[in-house]
């Protein structure tokens, strides 16, 4: 195919050419960034928690009235006993929080009490000997807590655990040589010892601010005995989660009715917890998806419209070419190549625009840098789109009969 006559023809249609190229450039810039945002959010929302999510549900238990630490400690132990004896329950534990809850207690760990900067941030989960089994965590080194290690902690008491269990990620961060087990660390100013390491346990918040210590979590042998209440985490026997949820609620109120479990958010399956935690990420991905599809559709419509117009304008010339011996393939090829040229021009400008837009998003919204793979995907997508959109008008052009050359209008 000869490029020169096409370029010559395009020079006669500067405005139309420029408009299509510009539209392709803008579409490329936005679609690349949108695809990239979708990919980032989807990766983010499919990160594993490290727990056995399918059978787990959580209970937010709030107390009614005034209680001493001792009363609450006894009450919580009775609650745990009651829940564990429900036939459909595999195990249950009490904690201050759980992964993906959104917030909770995060603190800094120091290796030396005189340090100013923390060695690492960490999420703190209150635990008892049943926690590892309830969450379905894998203990990869050391030991579990024992029942007599678990101490009651009131609202403003200091956290002084004798021992802690850390995640592998946290252990590797604090002791890169792999010697974490048995080592002393300083948590909230108090010395404690690492007695066990679990494979994986996600932090409470999946927001950006908490990403610096993602997967660095720690279990303390403590029971949070405060009047504001706390959480019970229950693992049902496989496939019996729904029965277990009903039975556990009944068991708790039978144990002691002076408590509040909110009707809406008091009991959540872990699927619900996950859905709430990633609400915005999922929404953003859906929005970007809709925008990308709409944009591509509109750009395609624009190409169809403008090319149809050109074909209509050039019917006579096409007729002349056909009369002079050009085949249908030649005419089809002419319009396809023309579109390829315009699209390529738009893509070059669009690639530049995509990078600029991404840089702007990076500085304004702390997004990551666009990977070139997305640019490539966008480029291929738009080339195909351009060729697809031009196909119908080009086919119509190729059907122009040579007789048209003889008509006066």
């Amino acid at each position, binding site marked *: 195919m000869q490029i020169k006559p096409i370029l010559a023809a395009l020079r006669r249609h500067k*405005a*139309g050419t420029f*408009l*299509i190229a510009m*539209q392709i450039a*803008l*579409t490329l*810039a*936005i679609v690349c960034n*949108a695809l990239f*945002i979708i990919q980032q959010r989807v990766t983010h929302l499919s990160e594993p928690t490290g727990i056995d999510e399918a059978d787990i549900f959580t209970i937010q238990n*709030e*107390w*009614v*009235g*005034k209680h001493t630490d001792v009363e609450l400690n006894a009450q919580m132990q009775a609650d745990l006993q009651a829940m564990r004896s429900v036939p459909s329950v595999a195990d249950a534990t009490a904690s201050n929080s759980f992964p993906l809850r959104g917030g909770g207690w995060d603190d*800094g760990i120091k290796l030396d009490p005189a340090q*100013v900067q*923390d060695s690492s941030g960490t999420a703190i989960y209150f635990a008892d000997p049943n926690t590892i089994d309830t969450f379905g965590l894998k203990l990869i080194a050391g030991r579990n807590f024992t029942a007599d290690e678990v101490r009651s902690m009131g*609202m*403003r*008491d*200091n956290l002084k655990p004798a021992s802690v269990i850390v995640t592998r990620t946290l252990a590797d961060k604090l002791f890169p040589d792999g010697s974490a087990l048995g080592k002393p660390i300083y948590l*909230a*100013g108090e010395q404690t010892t690492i007695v066990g390491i679990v494979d994986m346990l996600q932090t409470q918040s999946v927001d950006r601010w908490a990403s610096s210590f993602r997967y660095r979590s720690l279990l303390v042998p403590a029971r949070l005995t*405060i*009047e*504001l209440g706390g959480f019970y985490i229950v693992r049902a026997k496989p496939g019996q989660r729904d029965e277990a949820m009903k039975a556990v609620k009944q068991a708790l109120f039978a144990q002691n*009715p*002076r408590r*509040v479990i*909110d009707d809406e958010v008091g009991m959540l399956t872990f699927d619900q917890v996950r859905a709430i935690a990633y*609400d*915005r990420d*999922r*929404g*953003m991905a*859906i*929005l*970007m998806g809709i*925008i990308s599809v*709409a*944009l591509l559709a*509109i*750009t395609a*419509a*624009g190409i*169809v*419209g*403008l090319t*149809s*117009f*050109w074909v*209509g*304008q050039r019917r*006579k010339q096409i007729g002349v070419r056909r009369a002079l011996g050009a085949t249908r393939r030649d005419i089809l090829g002419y319009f396809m190549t023309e579109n390829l040229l315009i699209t390529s021009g738009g893509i070059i400008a669009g690639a530049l625009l995509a990078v600029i837009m991404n840089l702007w998003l990076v500085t*304004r*919204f702390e997004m990551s840098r666009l990977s070139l793979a997305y640019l490539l995907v966008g480029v291929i997508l738009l080339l195909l789109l351009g060729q697809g959109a031009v196909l119908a008008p080009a086919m119509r052009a190729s059907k122009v009969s040579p007789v048209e050359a003889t008509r*006066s*209008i």
Partner: protein
Amino acid sequence: MFVHNLRLGAKSLRRNPVLTALMIMSIGIGVAASMITYAVFRAVSGNPIPQKSSVLFVPQIDNWGPTYNRAGEPPPALNYTDAMALMKAKKAERQTVFFPISASVISTTTERLPFKVRGYATFGDFFPMFEVPFLYGSGWSHESDDAHEAVAVISKELNKKLFDGANSVGKDIQLDDGTYRIVGVTDTYDPKPRFFDMFNSDGYTDPAQVYVPFHHMMDLKVDTWGNNTCGGGPNRGNDYQSWLRGECVWLAAWVELPTKADEDAYRSWLRGYAEEQQRSGRFGWAPNVRLRNVVDWLDYRHAVPPESRIALTIAVSFLIICLVNTVGLLLAKFMRRAPEIGVRRALGASRAEIYKQFLAEAGMVGLSGGVLGLILTGAGMFGTGLVFGKEIAKLAQLDFSLVLLTLVVAVLSTLIAAFYPTWRAAQVQPAWQLKSN
């Protein structure tokens, strides 16, 4: 003449239904996308208390020092020591500090299970400062504050639940183990974002249902339901009393300063207070205080969610692409009629006539696009919850001003898009077109 132009436009639009439909869809989708995201953006970036936003201030005192504060900024709330000093000094026209509480409402008459209500332990100034509207009664007085009285203000919603909406002023409410005399029932009070409590929430959570006096709650050693931020500093305390004396911040503070002079005076008082703390040895650093008004405070606390800004940016770029598309389609449409323009011009129509005719046609496309956009915007409003979360989506509403704006944006942007194609149409040389083609 205008009607004639409209008639010509309608006729021409009917001639290429596909092209016309493409243009209308393009504008409709573009306008709808921008309007939906704009409605959300408008909802979250509004000023929640415009009449007082310049006289309400958040005082901040750096009690953490340069080692532990965040990038030189004082913490976003006060500890107990500083909050009480501020309340005792009474240097502002009105002042309050508060913390969120969660209490069980226990029904004494019926067999209803206890339920939780959230609210604030605060001072009587809270209500006039934030212009809380009352259905019955009012807030409590300074005397009630000083006497540590067990009084309560409840919300309309709670009043409905407990008293079937009747005037409950003077009646009692049982909160956990205490009995409180109701002095006021608020009307619906739910400013968005909840500017006064950006320390404990993102500003879009459910409204408070109960308010009780601060001192009374402190006597009961009721703990905060909200945040307690220690910022890595050493002095956290190791029981309730030493926690109160410690440097953890958990109390939101506000002052009302009606004039610029008051503001300046308060700022220097704050600095003086910090200097005094430095002299007494509590602060080992130079005074570092802030006094931000409502607008500055919302900006500082990032009240507008980043999702909303990203979505608005993308939606506006989207509208631009739709317009570029419309320019192309209009150009195709107008230039196809070059012979017709040539005839009109040869018969004596001026360039202005051609402009009028084609802009009228474009205006019709814009209006149709606007109507389509309106339908899509209405439909899209149901989908905002997917992207921005339920709390924020609730705020975005399709009201009259948005309807008007949608139509105006659609017509105006189409006219702008039509300008170049129309100009090209007006440039058509009559002689050239009249020649046999």
